[in-house]
């Protein structure tokens, strides 16, 4: 079983480990230096509620605008003010931007966590800290360089208000980092101008703070450090990020719901899904309000709990609107009852689950993939649902649209399983595109005219080849009226307690689910010559697993890749499972839920599937995957008779 390696330096990480002990400015091998341009990671340790979030996203955005592939992981507490919070930035010119725990530089702005933060710098790395107060001798390490800037002092001297003094400390280190890492100050200043266009006073103090931090660094340190940035791509438009955007999965999901034509959203606030509805609300205010009458072409209901939120979605879906909810694991637990109703009564619903760490309240601000089995079979009795697994914000956008189509096509709840890492962090993804010829697939819904042409209408008969029967919407005509019920019903929609009639409907529901395997997004399959095993993964594991596979390949360990993107599992998954004797299933939960689902729902033998799991709540690292696969390969080789 894999332990969470927060804070340890993984043995198997890329590149040779540098020698221990050099002081700041010491010579390091030239090759090392070269490799650290646009390939390093740094961590910012802050106090929650001090404005660090905007400083850190400013940094990440500046790097993105320099054309360099970058990721930012916000590791925040379940707290509004006072507790420690961290932000990790990784830049990688080749695009490997999964989380890494190997930090070249730590910005230590929280005295409370100095000890741990300083521990996390790799040997010969740097610690930037507020030297207004002396650092405890016990924290000092001889193998890293300490760069002290008296931020508190500088800000007290230069800013009058107490709140401003706190906030500007964080902005000031952006300036210092710009000098140390060679961030283009022009880019930073452009961003400030955009951000504070309407607030000239804030613009002035932010610019001043950045300049103070920058000048201090230029004056006191050898800038830039060997670990630094260099704008990529030359002419504008040619950089690796030129046709990319910086977006969170939750915003992309909200965009998907907007573009799919969702008009009703019902939700109950819960981290980490809340920003889906925040974004959807903003988008609706922008695009769905009549400029003259101020009338809204949407209805967003903040429900009293998740029981009600899903009820509202089901009511709206029953009535023909595209409706969705966004929640996290605890919400899914509560919604399970009515998910079964929607499944059995065959009502479309879209449920976005931005997964967090469970069980129970768990760790609300940490990421996990722990709801796979819960969502696959949510509710009592025999139920099976359609699941979509986006791996990044771009897929959040497209899969959300797809979820509405599938929900109406198959008249059933559809889950979009994102997670906190995808949902709340900014990701660099290709610019989202939209095909204006798209029209919603509303599935089989009879119009008044179609009803008139029928001798008689029954809700659950006849079925088409997909196992779907036509529905009618309330208000269409008396002829199309039927009684929706969660109680036992026959194929005509009438109440029944007869075994054969009950089973007939249940069997059709199973057929319907089975048919959906060809309609969910197909798995991503990548095969390589000489592959000796397969790796199966899902969702936000994608980048770390790809990086791990590349690294393993450089050591002659070659594996094929499969990323599941939907359930029920399509034929391409069955075929991949058949073609490989040994596969590693990489996922972020304790019990290997994807592995379980594969063994339950395909013909694969349990013994073919080895489990690689990381579930401590932080985004997956390539090093974790590499280490575990190498370990398991060695173990199986030991067991194998000579």
């Amino acid at each position, binding site marked *: 079983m894999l332990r969470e390696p927060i804070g340890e330096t993984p043995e198997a990480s890329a590149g040779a480990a540098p020698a221990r002990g050099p002081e700041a400015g010491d010579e390091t091998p030239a090759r090392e230096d070269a490799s650290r341009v646009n390939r390093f990671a740094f961590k910012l340790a802050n106090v929650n509620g001090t404005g660090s979030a905007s400083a850190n996203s400013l940094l990440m955005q500046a790097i993105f605008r320099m054309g360099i592939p970058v990721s930012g992981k916000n590791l925040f507490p379940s707290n509004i003010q006072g507790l420690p919070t961290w932000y990790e930035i990784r830049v990688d010119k080749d695009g490997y931007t999964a989380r890494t725990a190997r930090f070249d530089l730590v910005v230590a702005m929280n005295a409370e966590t100095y000890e741990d933060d300083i521990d996390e710098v790799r040997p010969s790395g740097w610690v930037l800290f507020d030297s207004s107060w002396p650092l405890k001798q016990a924290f000092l390490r001889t193998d890293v360089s300490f760069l002290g800037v008296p931020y508190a002092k500088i800000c007290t001297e230069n800013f009058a208000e107490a709140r401003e003094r706190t906030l500007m400390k964080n902005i000031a280190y952006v300036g210092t980092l710009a000098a140390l890492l060679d961030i283009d100050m022009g880019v930073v200043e452009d961003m400030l101008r955009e951000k504070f266009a309407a607030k000239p006073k804030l613009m002035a103090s932010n610019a001043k703070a950045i300049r103070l931090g920058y000048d201090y660094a230029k004056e006191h340190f050898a800038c830039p450090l060997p670990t630094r940035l260099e704008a990529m791509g030359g002419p504008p438009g040619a950089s690796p990020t030129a046709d990319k955007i910086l977006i969170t999965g939750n915003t992309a999901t909200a965009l998907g719901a907007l573009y799919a034509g969702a*008009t009703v959203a019902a939700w109950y606030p819960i981290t980490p899904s809340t920003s889906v509805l925040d974004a959807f609300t903003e988008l609706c205010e922008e695009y769905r309000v009549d400029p003259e009458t101020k009338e809204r072409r949407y209805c967003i209901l903040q429900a009293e709990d998740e029981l009600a939120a899903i009820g509202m979605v089901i009511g709206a879906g029953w009535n023909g609107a595209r*409706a969705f909810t966004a929640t996290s694991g605890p919400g899914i637990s509560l919604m399970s009852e009515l998910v079964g109703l929607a499944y059995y009564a065959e009502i479309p619903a879209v449920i976005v689950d931005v997964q967090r760490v469970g069980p129970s309240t768990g760790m609300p601000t940490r990421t996990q993939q722990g709801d796979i089995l819960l969502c696959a079979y949510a509710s009592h009795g025999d139920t099976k649902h359609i699941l979509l697994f986006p791996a990044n914000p771009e897929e959040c956008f497209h899969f959300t649209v797809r979820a509405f189509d599938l929900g109406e096509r198959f008249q059933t709840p559809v889950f979009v399983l994102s997670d906190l890492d995808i949902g709340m962090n900014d990701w660099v993804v290709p610019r989202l595109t939209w095909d204006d010829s798209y029209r919603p697939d509303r599935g089989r819904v009879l119009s008044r005219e179609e009803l008139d042409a029928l001798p008689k209408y029954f809700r659950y008969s006849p079925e088409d080849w997909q196992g779907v029967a036509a529905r009618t919407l309330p208000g269409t005509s008396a002829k199309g009226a039927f009684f929706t019920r969660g109680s036992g019903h026959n194929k005509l929609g009438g109440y029944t307690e007869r075994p054969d009639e009950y089973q007939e409907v249940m069997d059709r529901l199973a057929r319907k689910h089975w048919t959906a395997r060809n309609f969910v997004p197909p798995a991503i399959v990548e095969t390589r010559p000489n592959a000796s095993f397969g790796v199966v993964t899902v969702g936000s594991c994608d980048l770390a697993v790809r990086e791990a596979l590349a690294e393993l390949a450089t050591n002659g360990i070659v594996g094929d890749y499969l990323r599941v993107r939907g359930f029920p599992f399509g034929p391409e998954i069955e075929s991949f499972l058949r073609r490989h004797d040994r596969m590693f299933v990489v996922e972020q939960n304790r019990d290997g839920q994807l592995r379980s689902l594969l063994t339950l729902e395909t013909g694969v033998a349990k013994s073919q599937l080895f489990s690689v799991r990381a579930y401590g709540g932080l985004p997956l690292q390539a090093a974790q995957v590499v280490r575990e696969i190498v370990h398991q390969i060695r173990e199986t080789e030991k067991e194998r008779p000579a």
Partner: protein
Amino acid sequence: MSYIKKPSARNPSLRPNALGLTVRDYEGAMSTLCAGCGHDSITAAITRAFYELDVAPHMVAKLSGIGCSSKTPTYFLSGAHGFNSAHGRMPAILTGASAANRDLIYIGVSGDGDSLSIGLGQMSHAIRRNVDALYVLENNGVYGLTKGQFSASADPGSRSKHGEPNTQQAIDPVLLALSLGATFVARSFSGDKGQLVPIVKAGLRHRGFALVDVISPCVTFNDHEGSTKSYRYTRGHQEPIVEADLVPPAAEITAEYAAGAAVDVRMHDGGIVRFTKIPEGYDPGDRDAVVAYLRAHQSTGAIPTGLLYLDPSGSEMHAANRTVATPLAQLPYESLCPGAAALDALQRAYR
């Protein structure tokens, strides 16, 4: 009597309404409830009210939760879509349905278990949202389908069929609704059709959440000596304190009431609720006074009934949301999707 198929023969003497439909066209399937169940009388009153209001059955959505009361939407308006949902969850499903299509007339049928125990939260929040619906709470103080447990509306001291007294406080849906800001609150008795039909009609015309608590005795589990929800007890203690009738907009001129005896409250659609009997000093528009009156009278064991409180000025859910007039479910997709060019433009903010 559930094995009997309802006869489809029509009585030619039945009077058609403005839509040319007779009261038969507002009926549903044969009831499967116990003979003499109060709920069947309520069903008859609902049927009559829709007929008298000339409502096209297919423009009605009838929803319910789980329980004896929640079975009844099958027994009226077979031409309307029905939704027998889950225990205590109907208010949310109704809210979502209403969000999607504001053109339909919504009736939610529930019971005291469904609304006051498992669904207390959902009912309360539907009231707070002022969802435009008639909500009929068929209140018998007992769980029928599970054979006789006390419900949350059972009065303290009221006895079960086996003689055991209820020791917990009762939740009074009328006082609860008043405290939550309900805009239409009524109480009636299933045995008083003369009072119930006009209340249901007014509730259907009210724009906003209309709660009608109907004492509806359970003949099988709660109609014995010692029960405060029996026919006998209710008949003996019911005090119809307020009489009200709905005067539709067109019929206003022809309505006959003695001058001075009536208080008119104008509804959104131009119709009028005319109060023809109100106790001295009672104002059905004064929430605090109504609460005080009910508390004082209920403490004596009386069950004041009638359209007890009405505020037609409240902003129902869609008015508060400023939803467009066209039902959301019927908006053309083109009016909902901003399109590729807008997507390109808005992504400039994500650079």
